[in-house]
C-alpha cells in the first residue's frame, strides 16, 4: 500500500482510461471518500473552490487503496516533481480531481491526497519567483556576446 507511483508507465497510456464498473469495485470502506469527492467536484464546478481529501491519515486497507485508485483511474495530465524528494501528481479520469503523492528523499510516502482544483497548487508558478527569474534572465542575456558572422559555421556546412 502507498507505494510510489510508476509515472512513466501510466504516462505511456494514450488518453483517458475509463474507470471499471463501479458496481464491481466500490466497497463500503471508501464509499464515503467517493461521496465527498462528488461534493467537492460539484462545489468546484459552481464556485471554483479548491478542496482536498487527505488519504494519508485515513485508515484504508491496501485493497481499498488500490480499489480507490482503480475507480478514479488516470487522466491526460501527469507531472513529476523533485522538491526535497520526489512528488507525483496526476489528474484522475474525473476532470479536476488530482491524485497527489509527496515522498521523502528516501522515497517514503510522506503525504498523499486528492486535490480538487483547476490545477493543483503545487504546480502553480509564483509571480514573485517569475519576476525574480525575469531579472535573472535579463542579466544572463546582457552578458551574452553576439556571434561573429561566420562563428558556429563549419567547413562541412
Amino acid at each position, binding site marked *: 500500500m502507498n507505494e510510489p507511483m510508476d509515472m512513466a508507465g501510466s504516462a505511456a497510456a494514450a488518453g483517458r482510461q475509463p474507470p471499471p464498473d463501479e458496481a464491481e469495485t466500490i466497497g463500503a470502506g471508501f464509499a464515503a471518500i467517493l461521496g465527498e469527492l462528488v461534493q467537492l467536484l460539484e462545489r468546484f464546478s459552481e464556485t471554483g473552490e479548491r478542496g482536498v481529501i487527505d488519504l*494519508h*491519515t485515513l485508515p484504508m486497507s491496501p485493497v481499498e487503496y488500490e480499489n480507490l485508485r482503480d475507480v478514479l483511474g488516470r487522466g491526460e495530465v501527469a507531472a513529476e516533481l523533485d*522538491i526535497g*524528494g520526489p512528488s507525483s501528481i496526476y489528474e484522475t479520469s474525473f476532470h479536476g480531481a488530482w491524485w497527489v503523492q509527496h515522498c*521523502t*528523499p528516501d522515497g517514503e510516502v510522506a*503525504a498523499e491526497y486528492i486535490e480538487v482544483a483547476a490545477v493543483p497548487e503545487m504546480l502553480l508558478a509564483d509571480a*514573485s519567483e517569475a519576476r525574480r527569474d525575469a531579472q535573472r534572465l535579463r542579466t544572463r542575456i546582457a552578458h551574452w556576446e553576439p556571434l561573429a558572422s561566420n562563428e558556429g559555421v563549419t567547413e562541412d556546412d
Partner: protein
Amino acid sequence: MTRSESVQTVNDALDRQGISRRTFLKSCMLAASAMALSPLAGSAMAKQLGKMKRPSVIYLSFQECTGCLESLTRSFSPTLEHLIFNVISLDYDDTLMAAAGHQAEAAKEQAMRDNYGKYVLVVDGAIPLAFGGACHTAAGKSAIQILKEAAKGARAIVAVGTCATFGGLPHANPNPTGAIGVSDLIKDKPVINVSGCPPIPVVMAGTIMHFFAFDKVPELDELHRPKMFYGNTIHDRCYRRPFYDAGKFAESFDDEGARNGWCLYKLGCKGPTTYNSCATLKWNQGVSFPIESGHPCLGCSQPNFWDGGSFYAALPTPKWGKAGEGNPSKAGEIAGAAAGIGAGVGLAAAGLSRYRQYRRAIKAAAAAENGDDSDGQSKEE
C-alpha cells in the same frame, strides 16, 4: 544573526537560501499532515509564514545533555526540521551561535529588547533550585535568574524535552540539585510542553511552526502537551497491537516471539501508558521507532519515567511518582484498563513474566555464589 537579517520576511530568507516556494509548500504540507491537519492547512501555513517577518526565537539550555537540540538539528535533507531555521530568526542559542562570552550575552539582551513581547522562548534542560540555583550558572547568573528574565518579554515558552517539561533525568530520585521543569517555575506565561527524551524533531519544529502560522497556542492536554502529537498512546497506534490482542508476546529479546515481531509488553514496554507520536511519525525521518527496532518503549515522554521502576518490568503497576505528579494514578488506571482490554492476557502475562524474571534472578544469584558463569536459565523456561 544581524538585525538586518532578522527583519527579512521568511520568503526573502528562503529565496536567499535557494529554497523554492514549492519546496517550502511541500514541507508545510508534510508538517500539516504530521499534525493531523488537512494539506490545505499546510498551504495556509506556507502563505502565512512566507509573508511574515522572521519571528525571533531565543533558545536557552540548562540542565540538559543537548540531545533535544541534536534531535532537531541532525537533519540531512530539506525537511521541516531543517527549514525551521530558515523560518525563524534564532537570535540566541549558546550551543549553535558563533559568538561567545559577553558578545553572545549582549546579542541575547539586544534581541530581547528589540522583540519584547513578541519573541518565543524555547527552553531545554531542567532548572535546579538547590543551593540557591548554584548548580547551573552561566554568565554569572543562575538558571532561575536567566529563565525569569527571558520569560518576562516572551510571548510564549516552548519547553522541549522531558527535562524542561517535567525535570527529566536531573529530577530523578534523589534529585540532588532540586531540578524542576519550566512550568513549575514560570506561571504567568503560556508554556507548551514538548516532552520526550528527546522529542521527535518534527514534533518540536511542528509545534513552533503551528504557533507562528496560526498565531495561537495549539490545543493542549492536561500536561500542557500539544494534543496533535500527544493525543494517543504508543499502544493505541502500535503496529504490534494485534499481537497484544492475540496474546502473543516476546518472552526474551532473542526468542521466537522477538524474531517474529510480537508484542513487547512482557519485556517491559510502557507503550500503554505513554503519550507520544513515535508509532506514527517514527524517528530518523520515518525509518523506525524503538518498538519496531525490537526494544520496548521506555515511556520517555511521561513525567518521572526514570523513577517508574525497571524499564524491563512489565506493567500494569508503574510507579510514575507521587499522586498528583503527572497523573500517575491516571497512568495506573490506563495501564489497568489496557490490561483489561487485552482480555486479562496482559495481567496474566505480566504476572508470569515478573515471576519468571524473579526465578531467573534467584538462579543467577545462586549461580554467581557458586562461581557458575551461566545465567541460571533452564530449558523449560
